[in-house]
């Protein structure tokens, strides 16, 4: 039994099934399959009945159901269409938190007492949501101790509704552990914060239900699995992920912004959202904190204030916060319900406040699932490396275009590159434009970050010089790199003169480049600049 201070908050979860499919607005009599990163993330009931499961690849989905419409996921649209639903629930309770478009939760005690019981509350909720849905879908309401149990209850309720019976699942107070016991550990990943790796290991160890997981000693679970296991163990026992916080985070963590001119159009929202999110991330980061739940508040020019809370299973990354702020602004600016709730006037002041913070234990990655396992594993591991070495220590090569081998590809920090939807990086590809003066292929395997000082002598032992017109003072005969042993030059070609940025006094560079190969089989790209020879690259 949980101790007094540990008692989980009785929570209501409202869950609309297949929201990504519903948000698209397609009629229900045609099968619809929503794709993300080449995998199925949502289906409407008809497509499901025809055999398309979640998580299968595009080809397999098409095989099961050739007439299904395959649509790319549109997260923005999902959020926009969910705003009216949440706004309708505002009348029932003020403390709604959106978890993701299609699912929201709030504490049950107050509203339940007000409406005369859990069952009455659930009925009201179901009715209110149904009224807002343009495309009908199964709506599940779950009430239980703790958000995790309530989510499972809501999903079960939606499942039952789809089957014909219109029932909300209400787990009586105190019976949550019993309710949870029969669920499989997969629920920790599908409806909770655990990673697929953890679930896989649990299954391999023979722990297949939440009941068997909760039966283990907490100390053993922590010893074997660490913090992630401790989380999963708490959830399996029916406790909240984190003990209810005792104090609100300090007010100076809030960020606010007054857009000038006041926000009226959606396209301005993205920029503002990013600025707010970056600011918040920096403030939290400087204290080693990360936000788990945020409150987004907007004040219109007429003085009217609207707010919305968002909650996440784990810590919210800067990108995640920016996305939610953008969605919320989208919802307030575009949907009729949103416009009605904010009243007349543009948004003059925006505030984002972290309502629940946790110590920042690592970097966050993209929060949408569906990417391939290797990329997720790579991203997670690279984040760990960034944690040890710093975020700039992990870089990717980006095509820039240029003449010299070192200029064509530049290393940029992984974070600076936009992470494309499928978890691999979206990098510029070599363009078709020709680069006059570009050195011929094949490109050298080693391009020295700092060119290596060298000496190049002709057969008489004199340094080889090159005049303005490209005439050599002698034929290259011997090369010594960084005062190393002299190597005989058996082949050479050049000079290729390059006179770059002649108009810029500071950046002006004049170089004469040669390719040469030495008797031991090595080949180098060398350059003479300001009376000094340098090895720029080695064809290793």
């Amino acid at each position: 039994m949980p101790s007094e201070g540990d008692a989980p908050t009785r929570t209501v979860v409202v869950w609309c099934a297949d929201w990504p499919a519903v948000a698209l607005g397609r009629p229900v009599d045609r099968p619809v399959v929503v794709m993300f990163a080449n995998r199925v993330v949502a289906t409407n009931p008809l497509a499901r009945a025809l055999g398309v499961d979640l998580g299968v690849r595009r080809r397999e989905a098409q095989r099961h159901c050739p007439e299904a419409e395959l649509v790319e996921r549109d997260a923005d649209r999902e959020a926009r269409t969910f705003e009216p639903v949440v706004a309708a629930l505002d009348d029932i309770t003020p403390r709604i938190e959106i978890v993701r478009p299609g699912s929201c939760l709030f504490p049950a005690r107050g509203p339940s007492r007000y409406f005369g019981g859990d069952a009455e509350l659930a009925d009201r909720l179901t009715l209110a949501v149904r009224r807002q849905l343009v495309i009908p879908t199964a709506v599940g309401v779950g009430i239980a101790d703790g958000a995790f149990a309530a989510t499972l209850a809501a999903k079960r309720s939606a499942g039952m509704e789809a089957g014909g019976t219109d029932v909300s699942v209400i787990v009586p107070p105190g019976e949550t552990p019993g309710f949870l016991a029969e669920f499989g550990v997969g629920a920790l990943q599908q409806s909770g914060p655990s990673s697929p790796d953890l679930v896989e290991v649990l299954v391999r160890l023979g722990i297949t239900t939440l009941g068997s997981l909760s039966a283990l000693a907490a100390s053993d679970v922590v010893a074997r699995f660490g913090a992630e296991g401790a989380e999963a163990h708490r959830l399996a026992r029916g406790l909240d992920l984190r003990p209810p916080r005792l104090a609100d985070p300090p007010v100076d963590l809030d960020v606010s912004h007054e857009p000038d001119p006041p926000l009226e159009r959606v396209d301005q929202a993205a920029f503002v959202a990013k600025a707010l999110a970056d600011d918040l991330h920096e403030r939290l980061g400087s204290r080693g904190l990360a936000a788990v739940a945020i409150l987004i508040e907007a004040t219109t020019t007429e003085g009217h204030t609207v707010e919305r809370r968002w909650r996440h299973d784990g810590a919210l990354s800067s990108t995640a916060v920016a996305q939610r702020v953008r969605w919320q602004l989208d919802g307030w600016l575009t949907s009729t319900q949103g416009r009605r709730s904010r009243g007349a006037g543009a948004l003059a002041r925006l505030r984002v406040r972290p309502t629940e913070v946790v110590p920042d234990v690592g970097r966050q990655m993209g929060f949408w699932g569906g990417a391939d396992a290797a990329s997720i594993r790579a991203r997670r591991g690279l984040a760990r490396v960034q944690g040890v070495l710093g975020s700039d220590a992990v870089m990717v090569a980006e095509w820039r275009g240029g003449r010299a081998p070192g200029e064509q590809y530049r290393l940029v920090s992984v974070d600076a590159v936009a992470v494309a939807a499928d978890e691999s990086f979206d990098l510029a590809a070599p363009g078709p434009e020709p680069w006059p003066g570009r050195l011929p292929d094949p490109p050298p395997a080693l391009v020295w970050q700092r060119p290596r000082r060298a000496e190049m002598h002709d057969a008489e032992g004199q340094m080889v010089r090159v005049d303005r017109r490209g005439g050599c003072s002698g034929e290259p005969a011997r090369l010594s790199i960084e005062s190393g042993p002299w190597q005989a030059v058996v082949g050479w070609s050049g000079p290729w003169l390059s006179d770059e940025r002649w108009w810029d006094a500071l950046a002006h560079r004049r170089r004469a480049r040669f390719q040469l190969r030495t008797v031991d089989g090595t080949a180098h790209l060398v350059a003479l600049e300001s009376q000094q020879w340098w090895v720029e690259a080695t064809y290793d």
Partner: protein
Amino acid sequence: MVVLDAPGRPLHSIEQVFDTVRMVNPELAEIVERLRPTVLSGERTLPVPEALRPVFPLGGLARGSRLSLRGTGAASICMHTVAEASKAGSWVAVVGVGAWGWAAAARAGWSLERSVFVAEPPTGQWGTVVAALVDAVDLVIVDPVHQVSATDARRLAARSRERGSIVVDLAVDDGRRRFRWPTEADLTLTVESTEWAGLEVGHGVLADRRLRVGADGRRGAARTRRVELSLGSNGALSVIDPAISPAVVGTPAVAAVPSGRHLRAV
């Protein structure tokens, strides 16, 4: 658990059991099989270009192994070896080789969206960082400029075996000193000779290359395989001669052995 390799004589460590080619005791071989960590990933090897397949005992990069590349031209061979796996979807991390020629890697066929560069970690953290990368990606290319400790080497070997990742170690010739690894690599590829074509005296450009690559397994467990390769200026890698058997190349002609003497296989 104490493992005996002969009645009454305990082994020093479990790892030696995996290293030993000769099994003194058939029961021990059975124990080794049961103890061997399961390769979690789907296949036992990662693909390599067709031209390089002859040098790999399993026809590809053995998951969980360490590959060592030496000789002039090792960097290019490394790029080509890894290219197929990268194209097939594997992630690659290059650690600390600041001079890595990304244009050449792209030309060899690398998928740069799945390749990352990690700055050389401070010596004290090298082991931790590379171990984390072994967990994260399929191929980790390293070029340590410090002496890799026995602990680090063992930990990497165990982690990579468990994860099915491959560690590739290079020794770039940049004037700095390199140290020997405390443990032997599962496979060592040495570029024994390089011949460039196209660059004459005073004219031409570096174009095609002819390389002879030799492969050696651990402690001579596998016989040396060799292959002659041609690396074109367009990046295409092809075989010139079929693999030459070790008995022919490099060793003096075997004279008739007078009876009574026994040859020992090396």
